[in-house]
C-alpha cells in the first residue's frame, strides 16, 4: 500500500450498527487524478466514500489524510482540505443560489470573519467555473435538476479543498446534464489540479472521465487501475455478473461496455 497519496484507507471495516458493509478494505486515492468508484447497488461505494470523508467512523482500520488519522484532525481543518457532496443534500427552503454557494465557505469563516475578500473571490470563482453566476439571484426551488446540481457543485468548489468527493452527482439527470456535470469535474481536475473521487453508475461515462477506476462488489475491491485494465469482459462478469462485450469508444478511445443480448423466451 503506497502512502505517497494524501487520502488512504487502511484495512477499514465499515458497518451501520451490526450490518457489515465493507470488510478489511484498503485503498489509496491517487493525487491529482479523477477516481471513479463503480459497482452494483449496495456494494458499499457510498459507504466507502462516507468513510473517506470521515462521515462514518470505521469499526476497524483507519482512514488517513496527509498521514494522520482523519478522525483525529479537527473536523473544521479537514473541511479546509477535503470537501464532500452527499447524495441527497437538503437545500434550505427559499435560499438564493448565491447564498447556498456562499455556505461552502463555512469552514473558512468565524464570528469575527464573516465575509472576507477571500470568501467573496472563492464564491465568484466557483460560480464562474460552474456557470451559475447568471442564477445567483434565483431561488433554488426554481431551478432545473441540472442547474441545481451545478449549484451544489459550486458550493463544494467554494470550499476550496484540494480533495473533492462527489457521491453520485449525476443521479436523476438526463444524459446531456450528466455530461455537463462530468465535463465540469474533468475541467476542475485538469485546470486546477484537484483530486476528485466520484461514485458513478454509468460504466461508459466512468470509462470516459476516469483516470483511475475502483470496481467494488460486496464491500471489497475487485479490480482497480486505468479504465482499460478494469473494464474488461472478465471483470464485468465478476463485478456485476454481467455478460457483455467490451469495445473501444471510437470518439474517446476508452473502453465501452455493450451488454450481451439475452434470449427472452
Amino acid at each position: 500500500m503506497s502512502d505517497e497519496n494524501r487520502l488512504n484507507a487502511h484495512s477499514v471495516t465499515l458497518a451501520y450498527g451490526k450490518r457489515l458493509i465493507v470488510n478489511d478494505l484498503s485503498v489509496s486515492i491517487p493525487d491529482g487524478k479523477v477516481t471513479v468508484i463503480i459497482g452494483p447497488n449496495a456494494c458499499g461505494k457510498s459507504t466507502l466514500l462516507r468513510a473517506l470523508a470521515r462521515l462514518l467512523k470505521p469499526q476497524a482500520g483507519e482512514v488517513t489524510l496527509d498521514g494522520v488519522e482523519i478522525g483525529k484532525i479537527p473536523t473544521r481543518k479537514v473541511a479546509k482540505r477535503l470537501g464532500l457532496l452527499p447524495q441527497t443534500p437538503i437545500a434550505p427552503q427559499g435560499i438564493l443560489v448565491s447564498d447556498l454557494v456562499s455556505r461552502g465557505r463555512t469552514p473558512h469563516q468565524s464570528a469575527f470573519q464573516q465575509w472576507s475578500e477571500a470568501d467573496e473571490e472563492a464564491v465568484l470563482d466557483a460560480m464562474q467555473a460552474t456557470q451559475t453566476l447568471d442564477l445567483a439571484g434565483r431561488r433554488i426551488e426554481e431551478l432545473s435538476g441540472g442547474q441545481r446540481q451545478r449549484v451544489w457543485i459550486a458550493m463544494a468548489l467554494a470550499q476550496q479543498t484540494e480533495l473533492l468527493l462527489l457521491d453520485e452527482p449525476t443521479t436523476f439527470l438526463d444524459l446531456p446534464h450528466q455530461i455537463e456535470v462530468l465535463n465540469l469535474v474533468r475541467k476542475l481536475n485538469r485546470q486546477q489540479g484537484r483530486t476528485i473521487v466520484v461514485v458513478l453508475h454509468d460504466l461508459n461515462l466512468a470509462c470516459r472521465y476516469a483516470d483511475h477506476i475502483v470496481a467494488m462488489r460486496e464491500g471489497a475491491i475487485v479490480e482497480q487501475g486505468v479504465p482499460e485494465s478494469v473494464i474488461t469482459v472478465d471483470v464485468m462478469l465478476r463485478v456485476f455478473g454481467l455478460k457483455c462485450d467490451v469495445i473501444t469508444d471510437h470518439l474517446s478511445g476508452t473502453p465501452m461496455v455493450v451488454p450481451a443480448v439475452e434470449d427472452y423466451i
Partner: protein
Amino acid sequence: MSDLAKARVSSAYIWRSKQFSVRLDPRTIWASLALLVAVLIVAIWSISAGDFPMSIADIFASLVGEGQKPHDFIIFKLRLPRLLTGLAVGAAFGMAGAIFQSLARNPLASPDIIGFNSGAALGAVIMIISFGATGFLVAVGAVAGGLLTAVLVFTLSWKGGLNPYRLVLVGIGIGFTVYAGVSFLMTRTDIFFAAAAQHWLTGTLNARIWRDVYVTWLGFGLLAPLALGLQMSLNRLEMGDDMALALGIRINIVRSLMALIGVLMVSIAVAGAGPIGFVSLVAGPIARRLTLSSGACLGGAALVGALVLISADLMGRVGFAAQLPAGVFTAVIGAPFLLWLLATQIRKGAM
C-alpha cells in the same frame, strides 16, 4: 473581478478590515428594526393603558424620577415588572421555538406542540394540587416537569440521530399522555386548588413582581448569546448531517448544546409566566418570512415572540371588561396559524 459580478453574489452590507469582517443582510436589518419599533410602541402602550390611563408625558416624568406618587406606584410596582417579564418570556419562547423547529427541520416541532409545555404543566399542577404550593415552588415544578418530558421525548425519538417526524409524533403523543395526568389531577381535587391550577395553566402575566423580571432576564440574557453564537452552525445542520459535517460543523456538539439551550429557555419562560401556548410555534416561521432568512432567524424569532406576548397581554388587559390571561389570546392568534401550518405541510406531503 467585475463589480457587477460582486453585486450579484452579495447584496449584503459588508464591513471589512484585515482580521475582521461583518456581513449583514439588509432585509434582516430592516425587519429587525421594524420589529424593535413595534415592540417599543406596544410596550409604551402597555404602560399607559389600563384601569388607570396615563399619558406618555406622565410615563416619561416617572421614568426620569419626577413623576407623581400614584403614577410611580402603578408604573414601577405593577405595569413595568409585568411588561419586562412579558418581554423576556416572549423572547425566550420565541427563540426556543425557532431552535427546535430548526433542529427538527419542521415548524411543527415547537416546544408547545411536542409536549414540553404539557410536561411543565403537569409538574406545576402536581405542586399546586398535591403540595398546595404557590409562587416559586410552582415554577420549580414546572421546570422539572418540562425538563423530564424533554428528556423522555428526545430519548424515545432518538434513533441514530434526530428524526424530525419521529420527534413531532412522539412529542405530540407524550404531550397528550402527560396532559391526561393534568386532567386526572384536576378532577381529583377541590374547586379551590383546581381554580388555582387552571389559572396557572392558561399562562398569565398577572401580578408579576421584580423578582420575576430578574430571573427571566438573567436566564434569557445568559442563554441568548450562546444560541446566537451557534446560529450559523444550526443553519448548516438544516442541510443534513453529512453536508454539515462536510462543512466542518461538529454536529453532535452543536445539536446537543442547542437542544439544551432550547429546553432551558422554555423552562425559564414557563416558570416566568406559565405554559403559554403558541408563542414558540408562531415566532420562528413569522421571523423567517419577515427576514426572508434561509435558516433559523433566532434574533428575529425572539423579537416576534416578545411582540406577540406583550400584545396578547395588552389585549387581555384592556380589550374586555374583565381581565383575561395572555394565554387565551395567544391561543386565539396561534390556533388558526397552527391549522394553516398543518395544511401547508400536508399539501407539501411532509406529514
